[in-house]
């Protein structure tokens, strides 16, 4: 089963300390070597993003940054696991590394299952 993990944090959180960058690099390297991480990437800040929104039958296009956004997605990784628990265990390590190497950081790691390739599209409930 395939999962995506998002790391979410306040927009003005600043640059991560070198120790975290190094620890995350090591963790990700091991995850790729173990074969269960299949893709990962960091995202540029919302200031450089563009939103295309459909409301009331019309489309509006808005460039970032956006006001009143509490948390933004800073990065993602795609994991292939036999269970959600395994994906959660891996995501928890990412949270631990942030806590250890960047004590003032606050944010979250969200784990979501990706539909397919082993199943049909999810039913929206």
């Amino acid at each position, binding site marked *: *089963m395939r999962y995506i993990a998002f790391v979410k944090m306040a927009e003005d959180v600043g640059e991560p300390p070198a120790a975290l960058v190094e620890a995350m690099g090591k963790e990700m390297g091991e995850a*790729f*070597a*173990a*074969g*269960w991480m*299949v*893709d990962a990437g960091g995202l540029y800040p919302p200031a450089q993003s563009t939103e295309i929104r459909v409301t009331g039958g019309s489309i509006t296009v808005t460039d970032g940054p956006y006001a009143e956004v509490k948390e933004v997605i800073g990065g993602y990784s*795609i994991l*292939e696991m*036999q*269970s959600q*628990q*395994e994906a*959660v*265990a*891996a995501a*928890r*390590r990412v949270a*631990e590394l942030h806590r*250890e190497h960047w004590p003032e950081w606050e944010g979250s790691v969200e784990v979501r299952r990706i539909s*397919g*390739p*082993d199943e049909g599209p999810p039913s929206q409930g």
Partner: protein
Amino acid sequence: MGSDAASAVSAVWRLESARLVAGLTRMTNDVGLAEDLAQDALLAALEQWPADGIPKSPGAWLMAVAKRRAVDHFRRAETLRRRTAELGHELEETHVPDLDAAVDHIEDDVLRLIFLTCHPALPPESRAALTLRLVGGLTTQEIARGFLVKDATVGQRISRAKKSLAGADFELPVGQERERRLADVMSVIYLIFNEGYSATAGDDWMRPDLCLEGVRLARMLAHLEPGEPEVHGLQALLEIQASRVRARTREDGTPVLLEDQDRRLWDQLLIRRGLAALERAERLGKPVGPYVVQAAIAACHARARTAGETDWARIAGLYDVLAEVAPGAVVEVNRAVAHGRAHGAQRGLAVLDEVDERALAQSHLLPTVRGDLLARAGRASEAAAAFREAASLTRNESERKLLLDRADEIS
């Protein structure tokens, strides 16, 4: 919290067990003891994590506990040895191994462990079971479900395998021996993948995904042995084959031929990873073997956005190479298909005429392909006869119907 911690323990186990068992095997030089120590650590986690919470670095926690157990084990053994020695000769220096010094090079240890679990002294089905258990971190029950055999059967295979490996060399093989052993490792991984790939649809949801585990092991091996083209070839082949999982069967479980598959269902992430692995294999600039060639053929299909865009000339050339490096009747039949598509049905039939029919006597493969080539060559009545012959050989009902329909259509 209790059940959270318990499920966290089994999840952490899956992520960490290969490194844990590999490191412990290095320390103790005994794969059976190593797994016992790792299991002891797992039990300790099941006792302590629900109360104390999940440790910051679960893998390091498990390793620390297992190492303490290892020290206890060797102390007990040492005490026993001393008592025995005191009865007889003089005391030697301590026999407790330097466990800290042994934890270096964990990557090499994992590679050693894979060589060990795929050891030629073991029967093939035991190699697969032991590899899934010690490298993949699956439980005996999960392996049994994966292979659709009884738990006890897998349990016996694993315990016999561990016994046969007592005293086996944990050092990495070198030279030609390493090449041979690496070929064994690759065939075990391929077998695990195919066990999942050829599984019938509509299975028990508890059945662990052996395809996924096979691709994962191939990725691991590619990281551990990056200088060997075939290892990247195996990874590329499995990534690309796995990319078609959703397209290759209908909802009722009947198979869909490659050319008829809905290519929008192909998993582009896996295709990208497969093509990248193939590129790594080719960039090494060394002679390639059957996995790289098969991956290159799979890549030709993966790159074609529609069946009509398939580069059959290139595929035919690759089958010529494959027939050299891995000769066999099935390869020849596929080579005939490729030449038929690339250079016309006559050329395909010419290749097919050379195939040793006895090797495929009970299979419908040969007459099916002959029928297809004859139909393309406009020889309708011969084609219909070939399809009817194929229909009489297949044991699959829906396939028989399909072949008879084709025979009727053409005549």
